[in-house]
């Protein structure tokens, strides 16, 4: 079965410092991986997705993620945190079972300190 594990339930960084949100996946074949962001009381927004075209994926708002097959990881990074980045982040594996289905990690809450 395919699954994702987010290694930190909560990450706190200072504004202007780098962000690292960690995600490991389990899959018997090359997975489709996504990162979604959820701001308080809002729906989910796609940040970026890995579709096997390139291992380094650039997303919106300066975020990027690197797919590392040898480490089964898909960590999300941003060079410089902004206050508006405070949100919940979900690493997601996407399956096709008659239709697309998303399997979410447990989420990482990102707090930005002034």
């Amino acid at each position, binding site marked *: 079965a395919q699954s994702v594990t987010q290694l930190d339930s909560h990450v706190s960084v200072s504004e202007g410092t780098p962000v690292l949100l960690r995600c490991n996946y389990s899959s018997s074949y090359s997975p489709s991986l996504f990162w979604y962001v959820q701001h308080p*009381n809002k*729906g*989910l927004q*796609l940040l970026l*997705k890995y579709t096997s075209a390139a291992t380094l994926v650039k997303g919106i708002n300066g975020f990027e993620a690197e797919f590392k097959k040898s480490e089964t990881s898909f960590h999300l990074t941003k060079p410089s945190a902004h206050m508006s980045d405070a949100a919940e982040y979900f690493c997601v594996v996407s399956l096709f079972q008659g*239709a*697309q*289905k998303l399997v979410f990690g447990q*989420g990482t809450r990102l707090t930005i300190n002034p």
Partner: protein
Amino acid sequence: DAMVIQNPRYQVTQFGKPVTLSCSQTLNHNVMYWYQQKSSQAPKLLFHYYDKDFNNEADTPDNFQSRRPNTSFCFLDIRSPGLGDAAMYLCATSRWARSSYNEQFFGPGTRLTVL
């Protein structure tokens, strides 16, 4: 702008009183999904429609039903809400393709409170 709209944003119901949540989309996507997200948890898929073809997840309780009268609208009916059904309910849409790469577009959610 093309989008996914959920109404109402906040819904309060009484224990056991049926409630209906609404989702509409202007994206003309043929797949619509309903997710349940409990406090501090990840979203969990309840069911999805591919056009009018309804697909229930194996562990979705019978208390949850859905209707899709046309491409644009989809409803979530909770027949007898219990306290454990209090959650955020998210609607999402996508264009069907034999692929796991598609983006799902999410609405803002309806937060359900059960008294």
